[in-house]
């Protein structure tokens, strides 16, 4: 227990060190979360659009259109 609190105190710099690592974790993992959410949302949007136009050829195949 004492070892843990000593570790957390980091020689008196604990609040600065943990705030630094915490900020880094929140920002960098937050960006991952947002990127994955965006990916899922656009995936869902495309699925909805495809469902909307059954006549349109699926573009996932080999010779899909080049994007402009």
């Amino acid at each position: 227990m004492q070892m843990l609190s000593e570790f957390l105190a980091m020689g008196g710099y604990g609040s600065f060190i943990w705030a630094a690592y915490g900020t880094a974790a929140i920002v960098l993992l937050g960006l991952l979360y947002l990127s994955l959410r965006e990916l899922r949302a656009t995936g869902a949007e495309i699925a909805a659009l495809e469902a909307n136009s059954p006549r349109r050829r699926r573009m996932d195949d080999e010779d899909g259109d080049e994007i402009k």
Partner: protein
Amino acid sequence: MIQKYANPARFNRLAATLLPWFAWPAAILIFAGLYFALFNSPPDYQQGESVRIMYVHVPSAWMALFVYTCMAISCAVGLIWKHPLAHIAAQAAAPIGACFTFVCLMTGSLWGKPIWGTWWVWDARLTSVLILFFLYLGFLALQNAFDDPARGERSAAILALVGLINVPIIHYSVVWWNTLHQPASVIKMAGPAIHSSMLLPLFLMAIGFKLYFLTLLLLRMKALMMARRARGMSMAQLHHQAAE
């Protein structure tokens, strides 16, 4: 040769192959880096335990510069060769670079307070990194400032290239001017001025961050390409409806 990866399907397949090769090593290296950074590295003779902030601060600073350089090169390729993937890559990289720059500024501030005695000073190094952060934000804002996405893309690309001049300024700011920030410890002519027991966590984190960037870049590029496709599809549908 590269042109064929502008095909979304091909890009998706390449991304799917590469992703696990980036994501898993990134996670492993960062966890190993964190272990050494927090548990298994010595305190500094001057700064004590506070030196542990270095292991997130310095890799973030390197990434801030690295991502910006990649982004600017990508923009140049986009402007000159009109390669569609180039602009997408730049667009995908900008928020990642902005996040790394933000982390660099925040951790630097949290390090500066106990060691220097201040959260912030307007010296050449700190100010030029703050400008880098605003360049990222400006790039993101400019991109969406036009109705025509191609115009936004072009304007943002020009801004990115103009801002590239800031990258050497940041690096040499501590050499050219008197600054509160100390000179470079690792990337210098005489070899690193950091003890090897401290270089290990630093390099683990630095490589981990680089792979994490590549992971995020692929994910974000994929999302951007899908968003473009969705935009194209809904335009086509609107067109179709109007024709009927």
